[in-house]
């Protein structure tokens, strides 16, 4: 019987999510101008749901102080209070309001993950495009360095580097950005390599275009589609890595509200059958699933256009 109830709820959640995706898609098509609306018409329901979720996360992150009923660090009650009218999701191991911390966590965790991804992307794609355009010894040097860095598993390497530089938020951002930049470099270089050999790039070189102009005006626009899709995937990886590090107590440090460390702090409740500690973990999972759905749609679209 328990199994059937579980199955029912699973089906209900899936149907609800798809319905939300459909409503969101219809709304977006209705309000956007004609050209943009055509793009969204091809969007599958999963991607619609993903996009809706991403929009909600961004809104929550931006307006966190306005939405959250309490401050993220204030101790407002006893430890491990149950769900009630004042503290909708109860309180955590120190008596801080769980809902408020969840809301602020959107700002902290997602914000830091986004900044890290952006940094990794700028570093990786600039170096990758540069290596492809300049070639020769620079390409060899950078590529061999990246090969070596990629020979060590990412999480282990991050832990090693964090031991060297010490655990703090800035250090974690830099360490993860460097490690992930190697993956971006690989892709950017591979994509740019195919573009560099095109005739129009040759023509631009002969015209005497400088290196910077060559990269930004000739190569980047044509390499953008795969790089944007990669940005979504990279964001998921970075987000999961940061959450894992925070969960291990080596990432975002208290008292900052952060989903990874919230799971760690309240984990004892799970053995007593309380699902509250699963909520921050679920928030992480929901966002990565949503981003993956949207990236899947974009990849599909990009490959469809190329055929």
């Amino acid at each position: 019987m328990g199994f059937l109830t579980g199955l029912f709820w699973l089906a209900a959640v899936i149907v609800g999510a798809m319905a939300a995706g459909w409503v969101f898609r219809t709304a977006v098509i209705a309000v956007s101008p004609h050209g943009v609306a055509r793009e969204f018409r091809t969007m599958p329901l999963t991607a619609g749901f993903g996009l809706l979720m991403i929009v909600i996360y961004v809104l929550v992150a931006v307006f966190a102080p306005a939405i959250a009923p309490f401050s993220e660090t204030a101790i407002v009650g006893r430890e491990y209070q149950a769900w009630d009218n004042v503290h909708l999701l109860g309180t955590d191991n120190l008596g801080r309001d769980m809902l408020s911390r969840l809301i602020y966590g959107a700002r902290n965790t997602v914000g830091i993950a986004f900044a890290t991804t952006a940094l990794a992307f700028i570093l990786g794609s600039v170096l990758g495009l540069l290596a492809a355009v300049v070639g020769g010894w620079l390409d060899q040097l950078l590529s061999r360095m990246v090969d070596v860095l990629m020979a060590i598993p990412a999480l282990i390497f991050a832990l090693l580097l964090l031991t060297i530089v010490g655990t703090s938020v800035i250090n974690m951002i830099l360490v993860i950005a460097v490690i992930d930049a190697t993956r971006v470099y690989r892709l950017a270089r591979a994509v740019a390599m195919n573009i560099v050999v095109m005739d129009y790039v040759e023509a631009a070189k002969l015209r005497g275009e400088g290196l910077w102009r060559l990269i930004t005006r000739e190569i980047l626009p044509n390499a953008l589609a795969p790089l944007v899709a990669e940005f979504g995937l990279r964001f998921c990886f970075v987000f999961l890595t940061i959450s894992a590090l925070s969960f291990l107590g080596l990432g975002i440090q208290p008292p900052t509200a952060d989903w990874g460390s919230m799971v760690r702090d309240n984990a004892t409740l799970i053995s007593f059958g309380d699902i509250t500690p699963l909520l921050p973990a679920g928030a992480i999972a929901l966002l990565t699933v949503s981003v993956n759905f949207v990236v899947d749609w974009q990849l599909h679209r990009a490959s469809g256009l190329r055929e």
Partner: protein
Amino acid sequence: MSHIWIMIAKRLGLGVVTLFVVSLIIFLGTELLPGDFAQEILGQAATPETVAALRERLGLNDPMHIRYINWLTDIARGELGVSLANGQSVSDLIGRRLGNTLLLALYAAAIAVPLSLMLGILAALFRNSFFDRFANASALTSISFPEFFVAYILIFFLAGAGGVFPSISNFRTDPSFDEFLYRAFLPALTLTLVVTAHMMRMTRAAIINLLASPYIEMARLKGMSPMRIIVKHALPNALAPIINVIALNLAYLITGVVVVEVVFVYPGLGQLMVDSVAARDMPVVQGVALVFAAAYVLLNLTADVLATLSNPRLVHRR
């Protein structure tokens, strides 16, 4: 036949070089550590004389390349130094836990590899059916889940109140085999769920890629059953990518154990590493990172060699 051995020897050589460079990076870790290593061991209260004596004893006054060579020879003899936190030999610390971690990874792999191959083949067989779509969607979902989320969901349902399995797999020093399987079931299941999805998707993709080839068309026209076509004709040619994906995921298991071990308080290398990073216990972190990196490099190496050997065109090249 000799050609293939030269190729494999080259790949092995490359693997050795990689290991060498990895060891260099890990060694440089101590060099970049701010502050004095000897001071760090002895603490702030040490007199300058004792610090100087320890520096002399550890050979910290030698130039860097000499110390690197000494460090490498020490590793070759199985000496990884002494933990800063408790003065124990790092080799002993690692030796005690390495077996546990390998057992856990092996346990997970023993479930995950056959399961994902089977699911992948089934998804390829019933492609575009409801089963295929469902498998694909759940694969995409489970890839997006953080490991600790999966772990705690399993604890919530299978351990805890009225649960069957223990939520903490911190067993005594020498459990019997049955007890190990029972106690390590949840961590192994977590790791399985994390890697199965990716392996399944790639197996499916590798097989489906081949289904458009003329020889599959021929087999179909002969009137073979779809199951037989996939297992007898498509699978052998899809072996190389599948082996690669399996190795990649086994390598992922090696790093995935870190988080899972912490969740389940499993006495393995990952737990040791996390504790040591928090305490900035450099020799232990170095040692564990070296073991993990070596395992990772070796697995990728094995995958490359096996993938090469699985291709008859490369083995019997004229």
